[in-house]
């Protein structure tokens, strides 16, 4: 794929040029901590982070073939996963589906079935759970349908619908046919379609053989960001079927209807899309950590660390998509994207709230060819424990880890304090003590974590909250423009002033009153940076643990 070769390069240029110019007059002029180098910025973890290091979303665009496996230190595991026979996969998959839809379906049978009644799609639609049904009913020719902020379509190279955010795939099959036609028309000319631009909206195409992903967005996002979201969708799908299996299926049967496999998973995808429109984590390519006293967090981490098992790769404690603690194998790093997919999986289904779930899941950035096995359980309201194991037979061992963890918490007598911390998952921006400051996002690049206060007045309505995120997206897209990246952006708008500051070590996005002066903004930045430095051990996970 020439395109990818290019894109990677295209995106590396700025990052490459970033390093030398950083450290450097601009920081000196404004940063409270002169010449911040990566790893020394506020929020930087001690022995590195817990994530595969990700700058922007360029990692997203690297192809998901073998070289990922080679990038992840999990060679063997990768091969293993590859070896796992179709039967295994299908069995894992049935379990997964049980989790998701409470409905067994066997892949072999599935494929046979599809061969028999090619045209008949009714079984799926019949099986759809009610959550989506009203989206199904939507008339795709209606203004209401057109006016959606963002449409997302997934189709196979045969032009078969795989997913549509709004409206039923059937109704859209012809439209998707056109999409595929456009894609292949240009590919026939050794070219590749990227996007279509019109007044007020864009249509973005992402090609990931054997799939094509298309989005129609009326948001202020850049083409890059929309592509970024489409790739999340792509990974979301991989996380359910693995890249290897996906390719296998389509090699077997060019016009296979993938929805048969994904039946029931639409809600996860829907949820992911909604989440991306609300939660800056995706934009930042980082995880938000739940603020809590460093001591408490360390204790919890230690407890988590001690509740280990041989097949455990990651133990993750989270609350409402905020990270409480993450313990990993010494040599294993989790990619933020994979973490986001896990967060999304958990938040997209209430079914995990009761009992313990044991579900296979592929972490595409980690290894796109095989399944892990996730043990998901809620210890408390909003406190979710996620244990990722390599061995699908290990359910009971892992389940035991959970109990051991809870046991330790009790012993150390921190569970109460932990609950306390959970009760205040957000802090108010007023704590910073800058009157004109309304909101901010600060990301520590080395730790892959970011922090931001609760969104408060004037952003009370949902629309306003979304608008604020869109503004951040706007700043982000300008700052990370692939060919013309920027170091600083000061935006004076009708409803707020915004400031973006991107260095090799951190990214800061700040939102303040439109009546705030430039001078005020500059001093605000300094004050804010000092504050974050002061609070970093509460806002970040400075001492990540390994087994």
């Amino acid at each position: 794929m020439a395109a990818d070769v290019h894109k990677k390069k295209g995106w590396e240029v700025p990052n490459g040029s970033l390093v030398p110019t950083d450290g450097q007059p601009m920081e000196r002029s404004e940063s409270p901590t002169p010449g911040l180098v990566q790893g020394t910025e506020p929020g930087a973890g001690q022995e590195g982070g817990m994530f595969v290091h990700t700058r922007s979303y360029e990692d997203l665009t690297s192809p998901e073939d073998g070289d990922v496996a080679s990038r992840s230190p999990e060679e063997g595991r990768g091969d293993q996963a590859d070896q796992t026979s179709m039967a295994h996969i299908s069995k894992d998959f049935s379990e997964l589906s049980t989790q998701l839809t409470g409905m067994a379906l066997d892949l072999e049978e599935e494929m046979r079935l599809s061969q028999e009644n090619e045209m008949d799609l009714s079984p799926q639609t019949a099986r759809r759970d009610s959550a989506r049904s009203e989206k199904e009913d939507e008339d795709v020719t209606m203004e209401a349908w057109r006016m959606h902020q963002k449409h997302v379509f997934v189709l196979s190279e045969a032009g078969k619908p795989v997913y549509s955010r709004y409206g039923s795939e059937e109704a859209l099959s012809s439209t998707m046919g056109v999409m595929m036609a456009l894609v292949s028309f240009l590919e026939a000319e050794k070219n590749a379609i990227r996007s279509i631009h019109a007044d007020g909206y864009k249509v973005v195409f992402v090609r990931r053989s054997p799939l094509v992903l298309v989005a129609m967005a009326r948001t202020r996002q850049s083409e890059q960001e929309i592509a970024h979201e489409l790739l999340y969708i792509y990974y979301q799908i991989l996380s359910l079927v693995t890249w290897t299996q996906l390719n296998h299926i389509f090699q077997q049967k060019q016009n296979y209807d993938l929805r048969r496999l994904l039946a029931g998973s639409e809600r996860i995808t829907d949820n992911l899309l909604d989440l991306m429109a609300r939660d800056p984590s995706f934009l930042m390519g980082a995880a938000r950590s739940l603020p809590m006293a460093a001591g408490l967090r360390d204790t919890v981490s230690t407890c988590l660390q001690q509740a280990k098992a041989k097949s455990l790769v990651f133990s993750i404690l989270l609350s409402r998509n905020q990270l409480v603690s993450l313990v990993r194998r010494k040599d294993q790093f989790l990619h933020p994207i994979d973490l986001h997919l896990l967060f999304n999986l958990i938040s997209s289904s209430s079914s995990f709230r009761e009992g313990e779930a044991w579900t296979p899941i592929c972490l595409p950035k980690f290894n796109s060819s095989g399944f892990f096995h996730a043990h998901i359980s809620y210890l408390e309201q909003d406190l979710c424990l996620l244990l990722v194991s390599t061995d699908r037979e290990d359910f009971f061992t892992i389940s035991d880890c959970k109990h051991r963890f809870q046991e330790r918490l009790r012993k150390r007598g921190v569970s109460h304090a932990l609950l306390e911390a959970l009760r205040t998952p957000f802090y108010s921006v007023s704590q910073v003590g800058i009157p004109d400051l309304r909101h901010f996002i600060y990301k520590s690049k080395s730790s892959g974590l970011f922090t931001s206060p609760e969104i408060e007045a004037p952003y009370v309505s949902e629309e306003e909250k979304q608008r604020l995120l869109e503004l951040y997206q706007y700043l982000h897209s300008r700052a990370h423009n692939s060919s013309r990246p920027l170091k600083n952006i000061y935006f004076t708008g009708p409803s707020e002033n915004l400031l973006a500051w991107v260095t090799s070590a951190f990214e800061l996005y700040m939102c303040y009153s439109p009546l705030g002066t430039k001078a005020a903004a500059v001093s605000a930045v300094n004050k804010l940076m000092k504050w974050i430095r002061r609070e970093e051990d509460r806002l970040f996970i400075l001492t990540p643990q390994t087994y």
Partner: protein
Amino acid sequence: MSRGCYLALCARPVQFEKANPVNCVFFDEANKQVFAVRSGGATGVVVKGLEDKNPISFRMEDKGEVKCIKFSLGNKILAVQRTSKSVDFLNFIPDSPQLEYTQECKTKNANILGFCWTSSTEIVFITDQGIEFYQVLPEKRTLKLVKNQNINVNWYMYCPESSVILLSTTVLGNVLQPFYFKGGTMSKLSKFEIELPAVPKSSKLSLSERDIAMATIYGQLYVLYLRHHSRTSNSTGAEVVLYHLPRESSCKKMHILKLNRTGKFALNVVDNLVVVHHQDTETSVIFDIKLKGEFDGTVTLHQLVLPARSIQPYQIPVAGPASVTNQSPVPCKLYSSSWIVFQPDIIISASEGYLWNLEVKLEPVVNLLPDKGKLMDFLLQRKECKMVILSVCSQMLSEPDRGTLAVIATVFDKLNHEYKKYLEAEQSYTMVVETGQSRGNPLLKRPVRTQAVIDQSDMYTHVLSVFTEKKEAPHKFTIAVLMEYIRSLNQFQIAVQHYLYELVIKTLVQHNLFYMLHQFLQYHVLSDSKPLACLLLSLESIYPPAHQLSLDMLKRLSTANDEIVEVLLSKHQVLAALRFIRGVGGHDSVSARKFLDAAKQADDNMLFYTIFRFFEQRNQRLRGNPNFTPGEHCEEHVTFFKQIFGEHALMKPTTF
């Protein structure tokens, strides 16, 4: 024949008993009085002046034929000459000796040619051997010789306006000796010689007083010499030569008025125009020495301004009671040989017993002078010119005889040149007054605003507004004219009044030539003013850019910050307004309520929050407490704020 008669006899002449053997008539140029003396005064003397309605009449003893009779200035003392040796005096001052008294001329065996009063009690005898200057002492009934001068005199002439006496001396009589009288003194001015058309063979008197006149033209004293056509000189006809006679320096020949005709002439000076009557053709011509003539290095030659025209036909009103018996008025014989012409503008018909002032009528001139530029030069020098000029302007702007822009431009320029001169005089006067230098220089006097000063409001009310109203002319022309006038004003650095600009704008808007309007404003052709800015604002609905234009204007005025804020608020640009007022440093004094109201009307919660917070912080800064004081009347806004953003969103007092 009456067509284009630009000269006329005044409507109300002085009427007197016509001359006849028993009734002698005299005219005194000094007091402009006509004396009708019946039978040597025994049967009565009637004195009629131009101004005074009721004539003076009295009787006096008949001591023989009266040669000359004149009142002193103010009719105090009457002087009567009966013999060539003496003059008799009679007091007219209440309760003063009524008996006549006499004064003989000092010089032995000299003959008195005449006398003239130079003030109420000063008199000059002119004898064939010189002049004697006396002071009259009425109560003593005697005269006191102040000064006398011996000199052979052929004839004399007196110009009361300038109180200069001119004596014709030498054999040829062409050497003229002026004397000037002032405040009891007699001063001799330098004498000068009138060049005669041809050197006469015999040495006899060759300059007659009939060919000489004295008059003040444009404030200067001139001796006018009517030089008759002579075979020898190759002049194409008679001409009038003007000698300038200044009080200090010597007399100088300055202008020559070409008459291009021969025959009998008479001179008048009316409204600074030299009028030359020609009896043979019964027409008159006028000259204006201010108009451009050809200058040959020493003198300026002038041609007639207008074609010769007769004086307007005149009807003699039928006398008093007789008028009941309705006889139709008798047409008066013009240019009759019985006419006598006195300076400056007097025409007397002794035979019919009338005295007229000659008048210049301007309306006819308009059509006789096709060259509008010359016409303006001419009119601008006339006393009663204003309405005529204005009508000329309106005329040249409308069909049938619409002027070209070039012509219109010249006219405007001439008008504004005059206008500017006046403004400058005004300005320097007020400056002097303000700086208090006015004391101790009596020369300083407020400049008079003559009718020639046509200012913008005259132009606007009488010409331009009317012109733009009746839309017969193509709008291109209309605008061109307005711009031409504005150009002219600018050229003379006269501040243009905004109503002119409004006229331009209205016209442009009428023909929706907004882009042109925009360009004019862009180059500040329409200078800034609040009224103009407001006018622009009012145009916004039909031409949105007007909003920007008026804001710019208000900004340039730099005295209109409040207006700017109002404009912005009216457009719900509350942030802009606040930023602006902060920029000029007024944000601590503005009314919070005003801005909050505007923000509320804008119906934009984010905006409202911002503004509300801004004033909370202002309160905090100024009073150490974010809450609004009751005086600010923001209760409703506080409740509104709470109801949208919640109680907790209110700013907490920071106490430390």
